[in-house]
């Protein structure tokens, strides 16, 4: 814990800031929910929030308890069937950013949210795809927010639930083109330690370290030899207003930040 704010708060703030300039965001379950709601209250007030439950243009008055909370309905631009949402909005190509969480991720941004261990007899049964698989394929780009450790940043994921840059950028670009995917794949991963973008080879590259985090600390928590940008930046600390919004308005119970 850095003085004054938690690692989770830094992660949420950094993830929210990545949404600057984006227009339409498909909000995944869990951490993306709070990051995106923070972004709408700060850096991206015109961000259209899309929830798989069937809402376009949500203006949640409180942090939605789940991605199907009644507060995403009241005051929204449109409530649609889930068929409309997945077919016309997502598959039709209207989503700029799909914001996902993950249990495991590899260097190419491929994501597992299904099982740890073998599928037929998992040691840990995770929730599964939900909408993540089709979001990863059809959203123009994918942002990921997750805690990082040797258990979550792994050389080989146990199950590929949502495709990222597959085996590398060249291979992924060819497959995406041949199969008519609209998405370009993952572009940002924000963790409790750092911010990563993807380089020309389609591999995750460390670009920014959160305050108080060392490069060694990051290396110890990644299951492969992580690529590091030539000029690693320092993530700016959360502002007082960002922390107030998280603590007072969005997550007074500390469900996401403790």
């Amino acid at each position, binding site marked *: 814990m850095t003085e004054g704010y938690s690692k989770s708060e830094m992660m949420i703030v950094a993830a929210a800031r990545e949404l600057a300039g984006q227009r339409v965001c498909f909000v995944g*379950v*869990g951490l993306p929910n709070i990051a995106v709601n923070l972004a709408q209250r700060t850096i991206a007030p015109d961000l259209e929030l899309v929830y*798989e*439950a*069937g*809402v376009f243009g949500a203006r949640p008055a409180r942090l939605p*308890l*789940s*991605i*199907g*909370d*009644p507060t995403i*309905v*009241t*005051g929204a631009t449109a*409530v*649609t*069937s*889930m*068929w409309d949402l*997945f*077919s016309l909005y*997502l*598959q039709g190509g209207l989503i700029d950013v799909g914001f996902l969480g993950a249990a495991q991720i590899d260097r190419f941004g491929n994501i597992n949210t*299904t099982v740890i261990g073998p*599928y037929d*007899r*998992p*040691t*840990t*049964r*995770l*929730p*599964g*795809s*939900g*909408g*993540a*698989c*089709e979001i990863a*394929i*059809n959203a123009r780009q994918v942002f990921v927010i997750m805690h990082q450790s040797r258990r979550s940043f792994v050389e080989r994921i146990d*199950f*590929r*639930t*949502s*495709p990222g840059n*597959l085996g590398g950028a060249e291979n992924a670009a060819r*497959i995406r083109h*041949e*199969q*008519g*995917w609209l998405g370009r794949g993952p572009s940002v991963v924000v963790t409790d330690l750092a911010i990563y973008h993807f380089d020309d080879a389609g591999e995750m590259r460390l670009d920014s370290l959160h305050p108080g985090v060392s490069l060694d600390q990051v290396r110890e928590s990644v299951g492969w030899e992580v690529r590091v940008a030539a000029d690693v930046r320092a993530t700016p600390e959360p502002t007082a207003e960002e922390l107030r919004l998280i603590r007072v308005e969005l997550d007074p119970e500390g*469900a996401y930040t403790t």
Partner: protein
Amino acid sequence: MSTSKVTTMRDAIAELVHDGDTVAIEGFTHLICFAAGHEIIRQRKRDLTLARLTPDLIYDQMVAGGVARKLIFSWLGNPGVGSLGAIRRRIESADPAPLEVEEYSHFGMVGRYTAGAANLPFYPLRSYFETDLPVANPLIRPIESPYGDGTVYAVPPLKPDVTIVHAQRADASGDTQVWGLLGCQKEAAFAARRVIVVVEELVPESVIRADPNRTILPGLIVDAVVVEPYGAHPSYVQGAYDRDNPFYIAWDPITRDESAIQQWLRDWVYDVDGRPAYIDKLGADRVASLRPSGTAPSGSVDYGAYR
């Protein structure tokens, strides 16, 4: 004036849900009919295949109650809180028995109901490419476009024997209206052989006819109408009551412990004589705490008269 389909939950479940059936209690976070799930547990139905995008607490309770042999789903968890212990124990350690699973993504499940409802042999979608899902579930299959412009994935139709839908209101013949999140109840109901509608409020046919854009199901496809206010607790009904989030949080320690779940089922399902008794047991203060913090009425529209 058509005949009334209004019946009790006990009779609806006894007559329309049979051992071995495929049952879909749909409703995406919103309008989850816990009352029907509890009645299915009380009547000790067996060998059901339970279909639902998000099994949620209701299927965790039903699996713990021993009604299910198989689960068809796309996201398995306690939304915003954690996981579902009774289901996980059966998947991870076959405890107390194996549970067959058939897994899709949300869009895949929606597509399955859509194909089932529209009498199509499959539903095509741009999903599943380069993932392990078609390996885990061989019913997800690639299909070439007949027009020569690439491959998509197909999922098979899903036609539940029974779909159960909770709604704000219906008339006695089953014409059903919903507002708030719509999920895929419409597709799941049209795909089903039998449909049970459970409502907060029974209204005259004239109320339905005054606002036909809000109708999701015509009585034509509905077999039974059950009136059970608060039947969706601890999930919510837009405009009527909020999700009982303390309940979802309290479920987490219960679901981790098989004996705690069985005790909960005794206290809140087996020893409770239906939804009115459950709501009495919950208490007036708890129920009052779930009211929306204010009102947000829609404007009204004028459909016009054309004689």
